[in-house]
């Protein structure tokens, strides 16, 4: 059964691009437009892996990771941040929050897929 990946980004174009790459690799994709919607979809269940932007309205990606990871059900859920940010301090903060990886935009489809396959399959 194919794994379901949640793509969380406030840009519909990025969600479509990431989703298209994942679907081509055989994943089922669902989307959220911010950290609030993302957290709701995660807690509803059925998500194998998350690709998440950092800078979003309502709740940013790192805040979402911090909140999701307080729930033991999602302790092992892989969450990869996909963002324009490249500063080491922010990367460390995400790692400490429980994120599984970091990709700096613009992403390369083959590298994104390899990361998801490594963490989610």
């Amino acid at each position, binding site marked *: 059964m194919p794994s379901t990946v949640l793509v969380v980004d406030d840009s*519909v*174009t990025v969600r479509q691009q990431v989703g298209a790459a994942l679907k081509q690799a055989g994943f089922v994709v669902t989307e959220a437009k911010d950290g609030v919607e993302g957290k709701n979809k995660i807690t509803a269940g059925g998500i194998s892996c998350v690709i998440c932007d950092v800078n979003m309205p309502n709740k940013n990606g790192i805040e979402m990771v911090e909140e999701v990871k307080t729930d033991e059900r999602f302790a092992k859920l892989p969450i990869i941040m996909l963002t*324009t940010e*490249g500063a080491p301090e922010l990367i460390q903060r995400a790692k400490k929050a429980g994120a*599984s*990886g970091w*990709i700096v935009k613009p992403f*390369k489809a083959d590298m994104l897929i390899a990361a998801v396959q490594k*963490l989610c399959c």
Partner: protein
Amino acid sequence: MYSDTDEIVFSLFEESARELIEYHSQSPVEISNAKCQLEGREVASVLGFGAERCDMHGSVALIGRPESIRTFNRDSVDNPSDWIGELNNQLVGRIKNRLIQYGVTVQMGTPIILSGDNLDLDGLSASQKHWRLTANGVSIYALLAFKAMPTCSLQLDSQKVVMEEGAVCLF
């Protein structure tokens, strides 16, 4: 008359714009200094930024016709308004990452999208530059307007490491 700081920031803009647009359009980019001269329906994105160091603050605006904005992407784009906002986000993000190596930590705002006919771009700040960015025979326009303290002096510190665009790091 541009200061050394202005020249560094403008140079980082051109370098970042070239890399980013060549990546997304999969085509070489021509960059020239030109003010927006479009007519008809246009979409624009404006994104602000600021830094404590040098009291630096400014905005980047991108503007183009919806059909032009669509071509600045290797995949099909359903929503050119969204795409120009995200393109601006990635562009300012790239400049932000470069400025880390000059000891400047930038905070970015959220893109604002505007649409209308015969839009004009202008900044009221002391330092500004206009560019025409052309790929695959199609152009969009950009404006960078910013201010920094006159005493600001930026020195490159190549020891400062920043994750590169496209790079993947698994923890």
